[in-house]
């Protein structure tokens, strides 16, 4: 009798134990799912949020950053900040907004040196190699250069001057006699520091830093540029075209590069020295 009740008790306590385990696991599981969703949502990153130098991949960075703020503290220009609740940036991670304050591109990169985990890649030793984002002339309608004004502020403030942004001269057909000086960004040199966006003179910047994945398209591997392949191979990869020949009257030729029909002038006789001419005598 007593044995039976002991057995019941043991069974009961085992059942209670299992129920409690299931309850805790479920409660914490629900919490975990909620937290997982929340973390996904608040990692969405607004396009204007730029990471400090040394972040090669956003997801890798989110895994490695321990939210300590040492990069923020070691930034001599105080332009980095730590994400706060409700900003859709992983809480406590460093970021900056180029329009508010751009990266000054210190040569010694103190923010990267300060990072204890290597979330800001210590292999970044030349600041010109940083890729925080990419400048995009996002609004040609409101960029005053496209209206023929001499602005060029973005070109002039660029720390990689003359390489990351160049000026493209174009004919102003409206006036017929002026030139446009159009800023053009080159992704191979742009560090995404944001100086151009910060300096853009119009009310809302027309050149903006965007994260690379938003700023750039991708051609796909199957596109090959023939002329580049040719240069790489050191010669044509296919049978070269036979040079096109026109059947033209004597004394005429055709220039493919743009001149068009060319009248060949009769070859002049080789000029003689004056002494030879005198010796020969006039005919």
């Amino acid at each position: 009798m007593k044995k039976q009740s002991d057995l019941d008790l043991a069974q009961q306590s085992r059942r209670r134990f299992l129920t409690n385990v299931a309850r805790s696991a479920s409660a914490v599981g629900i919490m975990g799912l909620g937290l997982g969703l929340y973390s996904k949502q608040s990692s969405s990153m607004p396009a204007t949020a730029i990471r400090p130098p040394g972040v090669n991949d956003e997801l890798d960075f989110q895994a490695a950053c321990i939210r300590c703020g040492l990069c923020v503290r070691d930034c001599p220009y105080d332009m980095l900040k730590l994400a706060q609740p409700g900003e859709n940036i992983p809480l406590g991670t460093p970021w900056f907004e180029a329009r508010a304050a751009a990266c000054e591109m210190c040569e010694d990169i103190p923010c990267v040196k300060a990072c204890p985990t290597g979330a800001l890649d210590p292999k970044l030793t030349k600041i010109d190699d940083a890729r925080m984002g990419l400048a995009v002339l996002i609004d040609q309608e409101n960029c005053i250069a496209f209206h023929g004004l001499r602005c060029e502020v973005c070109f002039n403030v660029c720390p990689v001057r003359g390489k990351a942004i160049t000026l493209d001269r174009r004919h102003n057909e409206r006036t017929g006699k002026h030139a446009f000086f159009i800023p053009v960004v080159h992704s191979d040199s742009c560090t995404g520091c944001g100086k151009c966006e910060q300096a853009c003179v119009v009310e809302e910047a027309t050149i903006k830093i965007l994260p690379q994945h938003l700023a750039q398209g991708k051609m796909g591997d199957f596109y090959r540029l023939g002329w580049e392949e040719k240069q790489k191979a050191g010669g044509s990869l296919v049978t070269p075209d036979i040079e096109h020949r026109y059947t033209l009257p004597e004394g005429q030729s055709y220039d493919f590069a743009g001149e068009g029909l060319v009248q060949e002038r009769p070859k002049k006789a080789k000029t003689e020295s004056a002494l030879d001419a005198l010796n020969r005598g006039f005919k």
Partner: protein
Amino acid sequence: MAATPIELLGVEAIRQKGLFKAYKWLIIRRFSQLSVLVLFLMGPWFGMWIVKGNLNSSLVLEIVPLTDPYILLQTIFTGYLPETTAFIGAILVLIFYLLVGGRAYCSWVCPINIVTDFSMWLRYKLNIKSTFSMSRQTRYWILAMTLILSTISGTLAWEFVNPVSMVNRALVFGMGFAWIMILMIFLLDTFISRRAWCGHLCPVGAFYSLLGKFSLIRVNAVALDKCDSCMECYVVCPEQKVITPVLKKTGRVTSLINDVNCTNCGRCVDICGTEVFQFDLRFNNIESKQALTAQYNSESISKLRNTNQSQKREVLS
């Protein structure tokens, strides 16, 4: 003597020891918590960079790195291998808390503790009682969950909501909306469940409790014979269950509060009018010494020598 009614909590201690001694450890503890914040703020406020960074990771005197081992563990669980600096920092912190008691972090450093202690004080003053209670083990489930979630999501999962680092960061780097988190924890602890956050849910405390197993400094009931069962220590203790084995002599007989969840806050030391408790080293187990003396008296020394080594070690520890 029967249990002290709640209105008279601490009165006896003040009468016996004076006002300062009745609050000594509480005052020192608050001083410690505020000092941590002030040290972090000296830099941004006065340009004195004694400690730079925040509780997650910092640099002391521009040379010594300190890293929260739990945060670093989350990073490792994402699959990323951090640089050596972070590991050195974490090892230094681990060694420190192995010495002073894992959850000493909770009561001597963590800024949330000030909020939850205030909640507990309010509960006494306003006599708030709530029936909702959770398992004390929940925090270990949450601890496991945060690590698994870090692996799945590839980011430091708990850092999206961690009130400890959020509030510390808010105070050191700018408040933002972090006060909402403080308010949430305050409401939870005051009205919904007693000691809900620190005593049941917080995975940071759960992590540090794992270090408490080896803690060198522990509270020792050196004068258990003076205990008059007023139960005041139970009432003020943030982790009530940790005192029971010592006072009621359940489980392994020891005078030391060895439970991993004892935060070494010293409230029991303060509140006890008869000075039963004191901070001590984990080796000074009065009970085993008394047992040993008793053994010496009752048995011959040679007989003791004959006991096998493992028994001896158990007696001596």
